């Protein structure tokens, strides 16, 4: 196990050996695009491989690509042993579901629930898959660009704009 800090090109060369058809990387980018079908195997590899050792998952962000069909996930990793940094992105449609990596990194548990809550991306094999911040019977996924605020929620008025006061 060596402790050299790797940059994104070197990391891509290491992962490309086993998973070349599932990942995508262009020169000059600062992220690696991964297909969602075999995400769990790739995740296990980057955690356990002796040169990579990414043991700290910092953040999972869900974003909307603004074409009403695709949504993306961005994973930020860091290795506490060799101090490398990696960003991985996965892009899915509404019908696809992403395998959950909760048993590899415990921090993924709540972050994945948050991504489902806000953007509606589904995860498989999650130990406790339900909404985390909004109430369980909330209609819709708020951070999508085409989200409309509901008129009433359980009998409470949710005013849309200032005309309610004027």
């Amino acid at each position, binding site marked *: 196990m060596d402790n050299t800090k790797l940059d994104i090109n070197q990391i891509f060369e290491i992962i490309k050996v086993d998973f070349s058809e599932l990942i995508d990387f262009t020169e000059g980018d600062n992220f690696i695009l991964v297909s969602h079908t075999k995400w769990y195997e790739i995740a296990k590899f980057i955690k356990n491989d002796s040169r990579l050792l990414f043991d*700290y998952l910092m953040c999972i962000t869900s974003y909307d690509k603004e074409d009403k069909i695709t949504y993306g996930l961005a994973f930020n990793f860091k290795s506490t042993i060799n101090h490398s940094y990696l960003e991985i992105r996965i892009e899915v449609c509404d019908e696809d579901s992403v395998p959950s990596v909760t048993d590899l990194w415990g921090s993924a548990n709540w972050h994945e629930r948050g991504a489902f809550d806000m953007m509606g991306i589904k995860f498989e094999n999650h130990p406790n898959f339900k909404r985390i911040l909004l109430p369980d019977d909330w209609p819709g996924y708020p*951070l999508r660009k085409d989200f409309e605020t509901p008129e009433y929620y359980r009998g409470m008025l949710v005013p849309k704009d200032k005309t309610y006061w004027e």
Partner: protein
Amino acid sequence: MSNQDKSIIKAEEMVLNMGPQHPSTHGVLRLKIHTDGEVVSKIEPIMGYLHRCFEKHCENLSYEQIVPYTDRCDYLASMHMNHSYAIAVEKLLEIEIPERVEYIRIIVAELQRIASHLVAIGAFGLDVGAITPFTWALRDRERILDLFEMLCGARLLYNYIWPGGVSHDLAPKFVHHTNEFLDYFEPMIKEYDQILSGNIIFVERTADVGIITPEVGINFGVTGPSLRGSGIPHDLRKDEPYSIYDKFDFDVPVGKGMMGSVGDCWDRYWVRMREMEESIKILRQALGRIPSGDVHSAIPKKVRPSKGEIYSRYETARGDVGFYIRSGGKNIPQRLKMRSPAFCNLSVFSEISEGWMMSDVITILGSLDIVLGEIDR
């Protein structure tokens, strides 16, 4: 009851609800506790009672207008939130900051760290049963809030550090009053040590309770004093120095298990006490050598970063805050996500509190030092 029945006593697990409104949950947090008598078998935290749609607001407001909303996320350390957001936007814009602005920002951030740790220690003492340290902590914190009021006019939510600079220059006698405060406060830390750190009741209640091992800590993404209490010297101010922290000389305190095992509640409390002393060291160094200059010279007229993404990290009083900003080239962000440290610190709570008693649950929650505003965003 017959003799046969007396030997079989049916015991059921009880589900206790520590509701959203509770004086010890540090905010609106709901805990569903499965207990067997007094011993806890499983805890499920339920959040979302303070979900104020911060990320949706960020997608509709310009970069300068978002600054007051970052204040209200972590309301006990709002200078840190402002500073971390300003650093993220400045990385996107790729602008240089004058040195006077950097010094002012660091002075303000370290004062805020002392204020936040005072509340954490006071509230922790209150949870365990000690009421006097809470009043002492609030009394000393009021003096820091006086300094902030001299600077920008507000006591709690400052809106002070803008992308590109700060909103007001230092007040005429600010340096003098801050030095006075530091001379007053340094001997006070010894008083806190006398009343709490060696107090036998406090030690009995917090030593060996709620141990976070290093592997569990890193796996769950715990950062800040909660992780340093387990012996791991991770501090973003030393590992990846941002702003001008590399010009200052300070240590990173870690927990050593002085009163129990490494990583228990006492260690986390002790790390916060020693961090206040390190902040005083940094402050004395910074106050002695502030350069002159104009604080408004680098504030851009229009904040319109080019297309790109950034993930920028910062060390607040509670841990690592991360801002992930996707910019589409307009003057409003396309997506802004705040990775809050208390969110990840709370996710380890259900792991470490199984098998303890009800009163220990409150102690563990107090030692993690959470703020619901940044968990629920």
